[in-house]
């Protein structure tokens, strides 16, 4: 295929010019159609991020300096916050996969009507504000909350379990809020898997487990990859839930940005944190793409 355009001029000089002119015109027309979008993206995304980067290079006195970045490395609390942020992001993403994959699988296997009813329960929390849901978790999980009261009344435990105002609370709250972001793309990709492949596998003598792991699972990977990336990225910027459920002991990067922006009189201090997070996130996305994307693409290629 790729060699074809190169062959063209040799074959017929008469049409070649017209064809390439035509192709050029089409490309230009497409570019013209895209340009409003490109300009918009440039104005609302590329420019501000460039500006953010630019600001982060200046210190309090307006001089060019690396002080904002030096602080991030030198102060123990920033390093600690950074580690906490990624720790939370990895664990929450893992929990979402563990809970979300079976859920999406079940949904994809249900009859259409039952599946849409169940999907409503996945989507419903989307319509409630994150703040409200986080407070609801507080009511359930705190020392004198529903769960601890029930467990103590039932005699299962004698001391309330420390479920809120700590790391566990943050994990529970964030997993609940982010789960739909994993389930929805995953469900869509599972729905797109042709059942004939599974039938063919079984017809050829594969037991159900082998059919799942060798046919279904690889085909669902692109959806899983998309879900994992969305959840992971959202985790990195989470603010409300860790702020309320963490009891001030789980400080994440976004909370740190807010603190830093109000503490320092130069915008550079806060923007440096933004730049660091952006750079690390892009780096990780590259790794994800390399790990998950390659496998997912090959699964699609085999189709």
């Amino acid at each position, binding site marked *: 295929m790729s060699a074809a355009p190169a062959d063209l001029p040799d074959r017929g000089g008469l049409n070649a010019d017209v064809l390439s002119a035509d192709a050029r015109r089409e490309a230009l027309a497409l570019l013209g159609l895209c340009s409003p979008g490109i300009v918009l993206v440039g104005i609302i995304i590329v420019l501000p991020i460039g500006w953010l980067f630019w600001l982060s290079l200046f210190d309090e006195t307006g001089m060019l300096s690396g002080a904002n970045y030096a602080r991030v490395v030198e102060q123990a609390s920033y390093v600690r916050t950074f580690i906490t942020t990624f720790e939370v992001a990895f664990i929450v993403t893992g929990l979402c996969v563990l809970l979300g994959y079976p859920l999406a699988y079940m949904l994809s296997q249900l009859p259409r009507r039952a599946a849409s009813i169940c999907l409503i329960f996945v989507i419903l929390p989307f319509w409630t504000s994150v703040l409200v849901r986080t407070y609801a978790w507080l009511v359930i999980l*705190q020392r004198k909350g529903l769960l601890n009261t029930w467990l103590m009344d039932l005699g299962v435990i004698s001391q309330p379990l420390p479920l809120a105002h700590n790391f566990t609370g943050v994990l529970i709250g964030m997993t609940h809020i982010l789960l739909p972001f994993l389930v929805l793309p995953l469900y869509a990709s599972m729905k797109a898997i042709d059942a004939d492949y599974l039938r063919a596998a079984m017809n050829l003598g594969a037991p159900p487990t082998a059919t799942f792991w060798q046919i279904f699972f690889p085909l669902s990977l692109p959806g899983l990859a998309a879900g994992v990336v969305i959840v992971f990225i959202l985790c990195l910027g989470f603010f409300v839930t860790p702020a309320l459920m963490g*009891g*001030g002991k789980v400080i994440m990067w976004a909370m740190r940005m807010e603190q830093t922006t109000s503490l320092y009189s130069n915008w550079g201090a806060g923007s440096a944190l933004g730049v660091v997070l952006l750079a690390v996130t892009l780096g990780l996305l590259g790794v994800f793409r390399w790990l998950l994307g390659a496998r997912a693409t090959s699964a699609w290629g085999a189709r």
Partner: protein
Amino acid sequence: MRKSRVVSALAVIGITIPVAQALAADTIAVASWGGTYQEAQAKAFFKPTADALGITIKEDTTNGLDDVRLQVTGNAVKWDITELGADECARGSKEGLFEKLDYNVIDKSGINPKLVHDDWVGISYTSVVLIYRTDVFGEKGPKTWADFWNVEKFPGRRALSGSQATETLSVAALAEGIPIDKVYPVDVDGALKSVDKIRGHIDAWWTSGAQAMQLVKDGEVDMASIWNGRAGTLKKEGAPVSFSFDQGVLTADCMVIPKGSKNKDIAMKALAMFVSPQLQANLPLYVDNGPVNEKAFETGKIPQERIKDINSAPENVKKQVLQDAEFWRDNLVEATEKFDNLIQQ
């Protein structure tokens, strides 16, 4: 015919433009913290001022110094007066974000001189107080910060502010037994050592007034540092709690005119009204934040039995430490970074 219509149209425009300008000039925008506090300010300060001066006061809410800095440095000042914490005022003043105040218009008598500056003036007081649950301790709960730090004598779950390093460092100094008149200037490293002693026993570091209230109300903690307004609300709601102004930390709020305000002169007059004893005396009728002008207590507007519950009543001021805004202007950044490093270990 046609010409006369044009003329009359021009005449109409000519009339409406000055009227529109006059209307615009008579509206000022005032920003405060929102919530019940701002509702109280609206009743106590804004409405009487608007009525007396014949102007319209448009309300907005602020997140603090960042907002002002953004407006002033971005040349897009939309507020004519805004409220801030006193340490924010001191910092913003150093950055040159505010207009100079005219004390020929604003009468500063009755206001603590520490809260009267070239470009900012105090407006109200909040206290950081020690609250404890009476269903856990009865009436014999922790009364001083030294008690709060004494985990053997007063076992229980504890919360302190994690977001307001200035307040937590002040109470940490008090916990070391430093007398209230010697707390400022704060020995930051000494206070941090004191925080280090209690840090392992803190179950939650709160980051907002609402959170502090929730922690105490739900019994998540048995004792906490809390703002007196929130503590008062808990008591009114019937929660089993007790607190007093002993060893409280008085923090002032202040008001400023952001640099570049288009209605500076009217804002000045309005601000003069806000800090006047008559309007200041209205504030404690609606909210627990005390008036900054002590002459408010002489107006006779505040009922005698209410005065003892107001944090800035002369009797109560004696029991408390006044946060030094200028000390924190110079030490906030370093102290907060050290504090964060400590509590996040």
